[in-house]
């Protein structure tokens, strides 16, 4: 199988689906001639034209609202939000409109739309180009939220998202775009939404995480393995719905649970995973659930010293895991 970057896998996923299905279109800032600020849509306007790969005005509510209308009228739009930080003006269209359309119309209408946005930090993006605000959407019924950690999943989950009859938020960790490579089939395949995947098997500590932190967790797990502690690293992949079965299975199997994420912990994915474990694994736990994530500050600052203070590094995660292992 050919090796591709996370970014190439995403671009290929869109390109192939646009070749297969002429209803698929892309609307976003700078997606055309520039090919997006990260290059995700590079070459697509040339191949599919200005209509199907359309530069939008600088207005996120417009991008999503127009895509909702187009989706209701037979298209399969992809709304690209330049940075997840800038999705805020579109929250009303996403939460009040897209998420509720099927329910409020009693299944008369649906919104088959994908909203793509790069998120996450560690790239000197400072407060507004580093955030991970996915938690805001993971409590919203009617939405599906997906975060791939590998090129294979990126293409496979994006294909599923583009074919899904309901709105899917597809968040791409921007630090993974060029740094994460992996095998990606050239041909058509898909990865189902809604399922977690075990990135590493182990019986001592279950580590639940998502996005690029899966790789941080794998590295930390390797270090612990040298001392005989086997971590099971679970890549949540789908943040809404969460794969409750997979979470409970790994937590019960290991008896110790670590939840790791990049953003601050309060009312986040980590909270829900910990809550699920507290509800369903009581009799199997050998230690308190542990969580590790960003500090309770607005976002990742610019100065390198402050940025690395924010980030959960393999070292920090390793230390936390050793504390838990020693419990």
């Amino acid at each position: 199988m050919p090796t591709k970057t996370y970014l190439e896998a995403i671009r290929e996923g869109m390109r192939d689906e646009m070749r297969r299905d002429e209803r698929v279109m892309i609307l976003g800032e700078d997606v055309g001639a520039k090919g997006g600020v990260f290059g995700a849509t590079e070459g697509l306007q040339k191949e599919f034209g200005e209509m199907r790969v359309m530069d939008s005005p600088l207005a996120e509510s417009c991008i999503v609202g127009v895509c909702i209308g187009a989706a209701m009228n037979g298209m399969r739009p992809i709304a690209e939000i330049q940075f997840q930080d800038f999705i805020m003006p579109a929250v009303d269209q996403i939460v009040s409109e897209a998420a509720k359309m099927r329910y409020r119309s009693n299944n008369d209408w649906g919104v088959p739309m994908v909203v793509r946005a790069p998120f996450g930090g560690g790239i000197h993006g400072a407060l507004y180009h580093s955030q991970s605000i996915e938690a805001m959407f993971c409590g919203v019924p009617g939405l599906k939220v997906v975060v791939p950690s590998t090129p294979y999943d990126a293409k496979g989950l994006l294909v599923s998202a583009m074919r899904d009859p309901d709105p899917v938020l597809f968040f791409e960790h921007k630090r993974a775009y060029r740094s994460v490579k992996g095998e990606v089939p050239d041909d058509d395949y898909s990865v189902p939404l809604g399922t977690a995947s075990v990135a590493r098997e182990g019986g001592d500590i279950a580590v639940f995480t998502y996005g690029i932190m899966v790789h941080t967790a794998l590295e930390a797990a390797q270090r612990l393995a040298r001392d005989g502690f086997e971590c099971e690293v679970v890549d949540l992949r789908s943040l809404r719905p969460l794969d409750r079965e997979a979470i409970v299975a790994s937590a019960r199997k290991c008896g110790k649970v670590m939840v790791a994420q990049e953003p601050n912990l309060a009312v986040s994915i980590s909270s829900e995973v910990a809550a699920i474990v507290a509800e369903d694994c009581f009799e199997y736990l050998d230690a308190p659930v542990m969580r590790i994530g960003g500090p309770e500050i607005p976002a990742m600052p610019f100065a390198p010293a402050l940025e690395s203070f924010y980030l959960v590094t393999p070292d920090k995660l390793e230390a936390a895991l050793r504390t838990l292992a020693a419990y």
Partner: protein
Amino acid sequence: MAIAKPDAVSKEGLDAQTLRAMYRHMLRSRVLDERMWVLNRQGRAPFWISAMGHEAIQVAVGMNMEPGRDWLAPYYRDLALTLVLGMTPRDHLLSVLAKAEDPNSGGRQMPAHYGSRAHNIISTGSPVTTQLLHAAGIALAFRMRGEDAVCVTAFGEGSTSGGDFHEALNFAATHKLGVVFVVENNGYAISVPVEKQMATPHVSDRAQAYGIPGVSIDGNDAISCYRAAREAVQRARSGDGPTLLEAKVHRLTSHSSDDDQRRYRSAEDLEAERKQDCMPRFRGLLEDLGVLAAGDADAMRAELVVELDEATAYAEAAADPLPQTAMLHVYAEDS
């Protein structure tokens, strides 16, 4: 823009049949609307929000649309508009009584949150102004498929202060999309008068920001409404882009059954507006023109009330949604 003067009917090329149909549509909405208020006062319908005073522009717009081809992104006052496009009093009585059969939402939404895929009427939520962007997206899809269908969207003047208004008109104008933006300007956003909403005398002045035509008409003059609606729909269909069409109307009721406008409006104002009601005015015109003979209008009303009584009885007898059905349709079942 300038307030359009109602021309002689002849010039409109409006035949008697069309005029009759127009009056009948307006009356059908009005009698249904009156029934909704009765049900509300009787405590049988917990909520109603009225179209009274808005009928002329809504019917004018609806009659210039092609059912089955054109689309509508409505708002909660568009009772008459949905009826012209094929929805029925029964549909809306099922909604006001929150019955399972309600085609708008199966009793899930408040009354007057219109929607019907069968009639190309997209589902309406409560947040105002969001549907303007949907209308632009619907028209974009037409454009991409090379269809010359039109999407109409309607909203109040207060809703033009929201960001989505700007983003939608800007996008539709930039791409010359086939959208008709209909402002039903009744001068109030609940209790807030239009002077606190904007600085310009006419909502249609906002069109200049987008380089599109802005037209203001007397929404109590059914003929002007018809002409302006026809032009705007034709412009959209022929690829010349969107129009911002403003009808100056009166809200002949409180904002909704939860509001009492006497708290913030003078009795004189309210009385003065009542006097300009589009219904008797249009009826008078049609009788002068001989389109309606003496008694025709009353006969029409009587006949519509029969339909209405049947629909009311049907709706009241219809089943409530079962509690567990609340869990359905969060996502498509097949997904």
